């Protein structure tokens, strides 16, 4: 096979939430874990599923579906945890299924149409990659986290 010489291509970890496909830049992903025991943290924001023991470290686990305001999965899923390297500590994202790691060239990425962009916060959507007949939404996990911290300032007891 000929080595692919694509102009400015990046590798993405592709995962599913229901029928939608999303991609994280592979350089932000630390590892992919099977679902393990997650300890619930009561009183934390809704999309925080809890904490998990990742080789002696307490890693916060975020439910991607809840984060994106989606309901629980309707079909059986092969749930996985995508652990990313946030600047302060690793954080895990629960996704329905991790499908593959693929090269996506910059040329095939398009901006998000505005009406859709406003639905999911446009700040963390990097673009939409077209691949054959699939559409993969490329998102920046670090940005998702940053926004999470900001939106965490919920009602506090006085």
């Amino acid at each position, binding site marked *: 096979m000929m080595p692919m010489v694509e102009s400015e291509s990046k590798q993405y970890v592709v995962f599913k939430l229901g029928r939608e496909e999303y991609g994280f830049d592979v350089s932000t992903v630390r590892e992919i874990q099977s679902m393990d025991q997650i300890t619930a943290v009561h*009183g*934390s924001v809704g999309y925080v599923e809890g*904490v998990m023991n990742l080789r002696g470290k*307490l890693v916060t686990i975020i439910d991607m579906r809840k984060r994106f305001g989606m309901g629980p999965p309707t079909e059986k899923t092969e749930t996985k945890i995508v652990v990313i390297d946030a600047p302060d500590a690793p954080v895990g994202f629960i996704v329905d299924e991790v499908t593959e790691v693929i090269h996506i060239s910059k040329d095939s990425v398009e901006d998000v149409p505005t009406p859709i962009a406003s639905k999911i916060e446009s700040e963390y959507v990097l673009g939409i990659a077209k691949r054959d007949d699939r559409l993969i939404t490329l998102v920046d996990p670090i940005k998702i986290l940053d926004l999470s911290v900001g939106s965490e300032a919920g009602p506090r007891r006085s």
Partner: protein
Amino acid sequence: MAKELDMKKYARLFVTESRESLRVANDAMVGLEKEPENRELVDQIFRSCHTIKGMAGMMNMQSVADTAHAIEDVLSAVREGELSPTGAVAEAIFHGLDTLDSMVSAVESSKEIPFDQGLIEQLQKALTQKSKPAPEKKEAPAGKRKRVETPTKTMVVRLGKRCALPSARALVILKELGKTSVVIDSNPDEQEIEHEHMFEELQITFEAGEKFHDSVKRIAAMTDVDQLLVGDTDKPRESWEKMSRQEAGPAAPTPDAALAKTVRVGMDKLDDLLDDVGELVISRSRLLEKATAQQDGDLQEISSLIDKLTSNIQSKVLGIRMIPLDMVVGRFPRMVRDLAKNGGKEVELVVEGGDIELDRTVVDRITEPMMHLLRNCVDHGIETPEEREKAGKKPKGLIRVVASKQQDHVLIEVSDDGRGIDADKIRAVAVKKGMMTESEAANALSRDLIDLLFKPGFSTKTEVTEVSGRGVGLDVVRNNVEYLGGSVMVNTSKGAGTTFSLWLPFTLAIIEAMLVQIAGQTYAVPMGAVVETHKYERVEVKSVREREVVQLRGEVLPLISMKGFFGIEKPAEKTSSLNALIVQSRDRRAALEVDELLGHQQIVVKSLDRRLKGTRGISGGTILGTGSIALILDIDSILGG
């Protein structure tokens, strides 16, 4: 290229050395204000600036060198008796030292070095206040005054061929010797060293001080020093004492020696190491458990050896994280001096117990609170000299910071001999702020009134001063101390002063905890907060104003259902009895209803992600022997709610 690398390495050396020099200079400067005639102090400051100037010059940090030089000019005038180191002159020098400090910080964080032209002008202006015109004489290096009466000694230092920046090392050597002796001359001299002339050996003639031998030992122990000869100047070299690094042996720990013999390790690495040690401690318990169950002598022997080694490693790793309290209190004299000056007060600060070592995390956490307490002492506690004299006190107030070891805690007391806390004033503010009604305030005990001081937004001082009004209140002091598992107490008597006592743990990484089960999950409660455990019959639970209470030997305690606290749906349970953990935080007690009491064990405290910090009722987590997580209950916030 190689030079660039050296520069990086020496930037670190520069930062460490400069910080130490600035600390010495600041201390000396504070002392000099009290004794303007003390020439030894002037020399100390001069030497410090000179060291910084020398190193900065070599590293091409012109602005730093210029600033240090400008301070030196003022200092030489002081040394010649042409200027008095008080008033505007002292201010200029302090300002200069501050500027150097921020420059050093910039070097440390590889930022652009700020340059303060205004400062140079301030310093030059200070120079114009000379009482008599001084001859336009360049400063002589510190202590280069001729005093030929006493016989001198000479030291010859040969630096290793691989010494990267011999001039930096040479200046460090001169400085070290200067600590114990008076350097008369050196070859090459400081100026030549600064211009980086090549030299094979450094020859220093000095008047030996009492402790000069300590310095010699430390110098001999420095890296890059190949050989060192020392002896009386007028005797032949052959009779001199010869020392090489290997023979020097362990030198007394001073900053310089420490620099030569230490490895810098990032705090994150130590945290990682501690994580692993935590795992090791947990695995050890499992190993011991398994080994005792087996009839295998060898296995038991090995496991008991591992048990011992693990304990050793654990205590050593915890020891590595300890730093002396001086890292915090070292800055205080200067700070208090500035505060007092701003507030028109006269204050003397006495610090004791700075050598006590605490976990790095503890030290970091108490820095702000302690600074706040000092600000309080100066601002609110100590009266103006006039008021003090009227009250029959010495015009100069006294603030003491005393640290001492108390069993498993460290006690830090910050006390002043000022006016004390006025209970009536607190009453008035409490009423004004709607925290109490007038009759409540009138009947309130002084203990409750003092507790109000720790509430956010409470201040008895009517005008907000520049220093105290920075949004850090006593509530932050209490929060930080309690976060560390410590507590704060206040003792005050009107007219005689106030003492704040901070009780702190030495370390917080590994604690003793009680494990409990709530809704299928295990939680840990720090033993420090646990009073006892108790089993109650359902019928014993009474209700007072719609809140459930239980009694412990006659004392009525609120019963807090942890499931209710966490908002977990309570299945209609019909158990006839309930397990309660009696807990205490400060002076509040309560019974926590939990599903099971699982016993106590040592746990390694791990912090939670910042996204989970501030979750009510949870202060951290730990990993149990089974690999599952137990969250640590934050008793204070549970009782507060």
